[in-house]
């Protein structure tokens, strides 16, 4: 009998299994029957607009919020019974920072590490390692309130790593950060991914989803609209290229009307008209020949934003 076979079974069994997960708040259905699995080492994303139910899902997966119905196992355990055992193996970066503002930066890490029953001497060393990882060594003694938004996020990630979690849950890790701060953060997350940490993250930025997620679900109004890798979703729900035409706010809708039939599909947005096509330049040339004169035109590759638009008829960020 091969021990390798045994190992493979253990390694490939999913770390998260959610099936028909439902959460209702009174009459409001925040999550309306979501099913997905996450494999160990995978980077899994939930992409969706505000109010889609992403945070609620993350809180259930984090073994904090109790589910209304459905099946949920995290690392083979049921959060209803083994909450502490599950949470002992998770790292959590919530949407809203909840660092203790009355403690210094390093103390925030130490205090949090203690919650995992870790000895004080270990917690001190670990805090220093993670401050270095989060590029916050100089800030060890600073007040949390003196940190920038990006630094707070990095500190929160460091806090989530105090227990060497098997799964790191990140709820909108870069929302509200400037582009530079986002890139620093992404770089840190890439490192964790390389080290084999399973990442589950939510975002309403399609570029973030494309950058960080091996696989994702597109969620809207508490249900899954589509699932796949970023590339496969774009292949399935969009065309290779998109031709963006601007005719001025008052003429876009009218022009979209007369363009229908061009490319595979035409979408009218308030500020521009999108023509979905495999060959953007070719389509533009054809339209120009037919006497269509947009104020500006642009050919770009399809993104997850287009997937979302196709699936819901709305933009991700409204």
């Amino acid at each position, binding site marked *: 009998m091969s021990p390798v076979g045994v190992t493979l079974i253990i390694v490939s069994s999913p770390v998260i299994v959610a099936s028909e997960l439902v959460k209702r708040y009174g009459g409001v259905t925040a999550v309306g029957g979501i099913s997905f699995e996450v494999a160990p080492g995978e980077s899994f994303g939930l992409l969706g607009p505000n109010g889609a139910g992403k945070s609620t899902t993350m809180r259930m997966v984090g073994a904090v919020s109790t589910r209304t119905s459905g099946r949920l196992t995290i690392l083979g355990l049921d959060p209803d019974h083994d909450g*502490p055992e599950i*949470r002992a193996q998770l790292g959590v970066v*919530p949407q809203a920072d909840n660092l*203790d503002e009355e403690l210094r930066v390093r103390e925030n890490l130490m*205090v949090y590490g203690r919650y995992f029953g870790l000895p004080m001497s270990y917690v001190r060393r670990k805090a220093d*390692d993670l401050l270095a990882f989060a590029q916050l060594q100089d800030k060890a003694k600073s007040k949390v309130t003196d940190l920038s938004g990006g630094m707070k996020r990095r500190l929160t990630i460091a806090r989530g790593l105090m227990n060497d979690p*098997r799964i790191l849950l990140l709820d909108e890790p870069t929302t509200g950060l400037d582009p530079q701060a986002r890139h620093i953060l992404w770089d840190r997350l890439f490192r964790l991914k390389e080290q084999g940490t399973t990442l589950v993250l939510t975002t309403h930025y399609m570029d973030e989803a494309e950058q960080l997620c091996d696989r994702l679900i597109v969620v809207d109004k508490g249900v899954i609209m589509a699932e796949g890798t970023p590339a496969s979703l774009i292949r399935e729900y969009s065309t290779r290229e998109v031709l963006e035409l601007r005719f001025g706010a008052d003429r876009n809708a009218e022009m979209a009307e007369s363009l229908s039939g061009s490319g595979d599909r035409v979408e009218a947005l308030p500020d521009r008209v999108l023509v979905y096509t495999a060959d953007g330049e070719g389509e533009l040339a054809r339209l120009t020949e037919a006497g269509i004169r947009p104020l500006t035109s642009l050919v770009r590759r399809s993104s997850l934003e287009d997937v979302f638009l196709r699936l819901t008829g709305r933009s991700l960020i409204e």
Partner: protein
Amino acid sequence: MTAIQTRVLDASPSAAKARRFGAWYVAEHRLRVMRSYVSTVVIGAIGTPLLYLIAMGVGLGHLVGSTPIDGVSYLQFVAPALMCSAAVTVASEEFTYPVLSGFKWNPTFIGISSSPITPGQIIDGMVISVIVRAFVTSVIYWVIILFFGAMTVGVSALSVIVATLVGLAFGIPIMTYIATLERDTGQIAMVMRLVLLPLTLFSGTFFPLTSMPVYLQWIGWISPIWHGTQLARVLAYGAQVPGWLIVVHVLFLLALIVPFWWLSRRIAKRRLTA
């Protein structure tokens, strides 16, 4: 380049330790926070008794004269009550703003609940940390009272425990109330003015309850401060209180502590696991 030191931590001892000691970790966290305002705590714990004992002993005591109250000097009469009231002040600080803050303003409770710690343990940890601060405050008070000669070393030391209990009996029900709030639109100030102040004034703190008109004496009977103060007086100078009444005093304090502690845990759980 920094590599994170990865040690494969076996998670089950982690969870087992959290299940067993979680409340202590929360208390440790709270005490660390208190350290950031330790000067306020210490100055309050030393300054308050000094001011009160000087004012009561030298000032008010002089006015009252040498007529014994409850069989002792005015300073002896008032000292145990002042000690209880100091513990109550500590509890009213720690069970109001930090609780609402933990749920709302700087929601550290939400942060803690994503670790293995349970909401009930967060409440327990708050209580433990207040016990520590109220106890230390009471011990300091007791020592200063000894210097003023208003108590003697001996059984009176136990009044420190009674004072701590009074703090809990007063503060835990307030924590229960605060835990239900979504925001503070003056409720905390109201608690201080309409609960803390009247209960302190009409609980036989500065004069015996029986010297008040009968229609005001009920305030003492529903006040943990009066019940506790009477107990502390028994321990401090052997105040004459019938045995059945001592039992009532103890039961009254416990009746405020135990059910409201339980209720606070329930509310925290409902709130943090929603």
